[in-house]
């Protein structure tokens, strides 16, 4: 289950309203490479990870991403809460206002609503983790675009920080990908003569994990 911590993972204190920036930032909330998609994708994919490392990493990064969703929500809210109707029209947020007033709604920067298609889960660990690695890289690139679009240090601070988290997550997912690739290769190419050899020939920790989980890729 999940429990709530009444604080942000990293502080957000935006003092100046900026509707254009709110309009761009929303893509990291509800866009294809956004935090909501990332959080739900990892928490969804963790079910079919073949070993403890994969389950733990997807679970823990997915949980952190929920905290990033909250940071993005806070940023968007603080950027638009004091806006007048005139300013909303001028920034092109009138169509948003028509349906949601000053409520938040997860879309990309062009208003395309969030969709579960962003999960892109195949159930194949290698395919899923390379999807996750790509997602982290794309999110990093989008954060860089967003940093280029503002000069408010209150906005840049959290964006730089969130960008850095994408780099860490990418590195961890890559470690997991390389580990699984090696593990599956051993299973397919290095076919031992007996079942016993199969168990004890290679990395003992790995084999133990596979044995315990009755792994379909190895057996």
């Amino acid at each position, binding site marked *: 289950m999940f429990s709530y911590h009444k604080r942000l993972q990293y502080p957000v204190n935006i003092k100046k309203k900026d509707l254009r920036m709110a309009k761009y930032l929303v893509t990291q909330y509800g866009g294809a490479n956004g935090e909501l998609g990332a959080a739900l994708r990892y928490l969804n994919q963790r079910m079919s990870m073949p070993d403890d490392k994969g389950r733990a990493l997807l679970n823990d990064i997915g949980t952190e991403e929920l905290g990033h969703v909250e940071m993005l929500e806070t940023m968007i809210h603080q950027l638009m809460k004091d806006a007048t109707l005139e300013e909303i029209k001028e920034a092109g947020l009138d169509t948003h206002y028509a349906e949601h007033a000053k409520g938040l709604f997860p879309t990309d920067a062009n208003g395309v609503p969030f969709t579960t298609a962003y999960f892109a889960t195949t159930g194949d660990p290698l395919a899923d983790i390379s999807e996750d690695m790509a997602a982290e890289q794309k999110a990093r690139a989008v954060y860089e675009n967003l940093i280029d679009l503002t000069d408010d240090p209150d906005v840049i601070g959290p964006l*730089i920080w969130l960008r850095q*988290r994408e780099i860490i997550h990418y590195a961890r997912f890559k470690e997991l990908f390389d580990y699984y690739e090696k593990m599956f290769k051993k299973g397919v190419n290095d076919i031992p003569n007996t079942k016993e050899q199969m168990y004890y020939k290679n990395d003992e920790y790995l084999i133990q994990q596979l044995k315990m989980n009755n792994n379909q890729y190895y057996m």
Partner: protein
Amino acid sequence: MNNYINYDWFRNNAYMNNYTNNPYENDLFNPQEGFEKGNMFKNLYSQYKDYSPEKLKPKNAQERKLYELSAICFAAHDLNLYLDMHPEDRSMFMLFMDYQKQANRLIEEYERNYGPLNINSEEMNKSFTWESDKWPWEDRNV
């Protein structure tokens, strides 16, 4: 350097598991620096253009305490992700446990003075303040 973490206190309390020094001094940032950078691992840190990380300057004692516990919680979390992939790394685990102890102590201390951060906090036995204390997306004039 304008630190918001009291490092004398931290040094005296950290690494209680027979560690007099941080064995990862060359590999890891300290919790405050790591928190500000969003990354505890020196070899993984990568800066965008000439944007250096924001120096967090707490406005008052409450914010100082909040940043302090956030930094230690962050340090523990970033080590957590590493340990998911390297559970056999014993000394990183020890450091992780030290950060966790620090974090729990700082959270308790914060809750005692400023109200609950978690619904299961024991600092709420006098009255129910969970709904009335500020939410993190509100203006925090703390």
